[in-house]
């Protein structure tokens, strides 16, 4: 097992060298109280690519994702170790402004969680608190652009003042994506964004993710191997808190090196 990790680590940078690195993580560990959830994950996230994190339940992929914008801070007992760099800047530096970090590294959650406000106010929420718009026109502009980018504008442009919670599940999730991109983040983290959606809504969101790649760096946690294969360029396989293997998605799904990856994608466990 140690050999595998070692091999992975040695191989990792070579494979990923093709694109500039947006986020670098080194030996990231997470403890929930006495329980260790992540045992030292070293992974580079390339810019303007979709990186998929796969692995069986409880393997630490969501925990890892939540380290990237310090969402684990909201859990009292979580303790994060190791190094996480965003454009070479240490995310866990005491001097860093967490609020600003989260504006740069946005997040979309597993369950669509629109605020109990109108569609417009949902998207305008981020720009308002960060003071991104100086006038009503600018705010309108940001909201409309974000909704357009999230592929939701056509469906809702005539009812922006209706509650966001009244939309369908798939629309709600795209609203949450629009809400995230309204603050112009550099990285978008997605935690199983399609697990609560039906296949048609899933397809729409997947297309959207593929389009967003142009402007944003995306990290997505998914349970669906097909989804990882469809939307991502780089895939990282987690297992029991370890990073089992990381590589270009095509290679991972056709010819994985690690036995655990093989077993997982052929459906032998997980």
């Amino acid at each position, binding site marked *: 097992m140690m050999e595998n990790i070692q091999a992975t680590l040695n191989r990792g940078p070579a494979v990923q060298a093709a694109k500039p690195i947006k986020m670098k993580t080194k030996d990231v560990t997470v403890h929930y109280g006495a329980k260790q959830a992540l045992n030292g994950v070293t992974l580079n996230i390339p810019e303007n690519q979709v990186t998929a994190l796969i692995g069986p339940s409880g393997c630490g992929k969501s925990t890892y994702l939540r380290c990237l914008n310090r969402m684990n801070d909201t859990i009292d007992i979580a303790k994060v170790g190791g190094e996480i760099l965003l454009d070479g800047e240490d995310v866990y530096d005491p001097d860093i402004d967490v609020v600003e970090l989260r*504006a740069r590294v*946005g997040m979309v*959650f597993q369950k669509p969680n629109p605020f109990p406000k109108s569609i417009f106010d949902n998207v305008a929420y*981020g720009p308002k608190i960060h003071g991104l718009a100086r006038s009503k026109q600018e705010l309108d502009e940001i909201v409309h652009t974000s909704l357009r980018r999230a592929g939701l504008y056509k469906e809702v442009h005539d009812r922006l003042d209706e509650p966001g919670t009244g939309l369908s599940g798939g629309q709600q999730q795209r609203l949450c994506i629009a809400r995230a991109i309204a603050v112009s983040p550099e990285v978008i983290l997605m935690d199983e964004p399609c697990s609560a959606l039906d296949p048609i809504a899933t397809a729409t969101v997947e297309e959207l993710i593929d389009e967003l790649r142009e402007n944003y760096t995306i990290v997505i946690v998914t349970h669906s191997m097909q989804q990882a294969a469809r939307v991502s360029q780089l895939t990282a396989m987690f297992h029991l808190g370890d990073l089992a293997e990381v590589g270009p998605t095509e290679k991972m799904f056709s010819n994985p090196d690690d036995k655990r990856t093989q077993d997982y994608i052929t459906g032998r466990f997980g």
Partner: protein
Amino acid sequence: MSTFTIILVVLAIGLAGAFLGYRHSRALQAPAGVKPHSRPVYHASYVASWAIIPSLLLLAVWLIASPIVIESQVRGSFPEGVLAESQLTEDLAYGIVESLGNGLSVLPDDERATVTDEMPVKDLAALLRNRGLPVASASADWMVPLALDIDTMQFWSRLAMTVVVIALALAGAYWGYRQIAPRLRARNKVEGVVKGALIAASSIAIMTTIGIVFSMLFETIDFFSRISPAEFFFGTVWEPRFSAAGSTGNAGSFGFIPLLAGTLYISAVAMLIAVPIGLFAAIYMAEYADNRTRSVVKPLLEVLAGIPTIVYGFFALVTVGPFLRDLSAQISGIVTGDYASFIQAQSVLTAGLVMAIMLIPFVSSLSDDIITSVPQSLRDGSLGLGATRSETVKRVILPAALPGIVSALLLTASRAIGETMIVVLAAGVAANLTINPFDAMTTITVKIVAQLTGDLEFNSPQTLVAFALGMTLFVITLCLNVYALYIVRKYKEQYE
């Protein structure tokens, strides 16, 4: 047998029936291919239900009906002279006869034997007085035979009740026991009994409320037949002028406005202080405090809720009131050179302040539960967009929790309006109409207590006004609660 003993016997029969039913059910040999429908414990409960429920229902009906029947019997044999008088006199006479009758059953057998139809009522009253049962104004000799009648009827009624109820319990147990068979759907029937018991429990609560309303309603109507509603609701002077027992005349002003104003004023001051503090405490506990702090602070805050309000009253009377008075004296001394306190020791401010302390745990505890129940996903969503905690609270959590918080506040307000002890001690009993928060005022509840205590004739408007006040207070708090429900419903639809 006393009612309590009868109930015990019925329960014992039920228990025995359950035990026998259980044994019988265990011993049942189901025919081949037939699966017993219910477990033995259901058969046992089934037998017990048959034994207990019908007999206790009969007991309840009997206890209610028997005095009514006896009363109509006895009243029928009242002398013509009494029947010709007013209803009130007749009621009074019956009351005396009844207490004589009840007294007879307490006498020891040898004294009881001396009482005959011809015995003068004075002697009987003396006899009872020796046993510690004074019968006031027992004056007419015709009452003695009727009292004896009551005693006899009560004796037979009780005997018959005992026999019939116990017989019914035995019959029920037997009937239930006979029914036990492999395919008896005892499980479903016991389910029905459970449901019935639950419905009965909730209807008792509702019936009691209705009963309370009606008990006030008739007295209130009586009051308004003497004092016009306009005078009550729009009068600005509260001066009921205690009428001594026996004296007639409705002199006195029953203006309700000063009391209403005092009630609303004191409640408003209390809410003004309690709501921000309680709400902030709730936000701190729900959003900021870690689990350790929360587990210490929350119970501590709730201790405040457990303090009896009379203790808050002391606190106001001996500490807060004098403190405010002395403070105001100092301030006026510094400003004008004259050390005259402008805050009375008993004032709206004192009462509001102390009542606010009492209300803080209500506001914080109710709001805390509501804020905590806002889904974590909304918090994550807001924090994930780079909002700070306070932005999240202000823009996401509070709007989402608003309907719940509003209804919590309205519930708190009804409590503030109903508070009595703090007001008596902190704001006094003077029914002033003023807008100066440093003056003494009083509330509806305080005046209800004041009107009902003391040696007053029950029939005078001075006493009856308490019911009108109570009814008005009930309507006010009812409206508040209904409004709270309405708000919750309205916003729930919008948010979910």
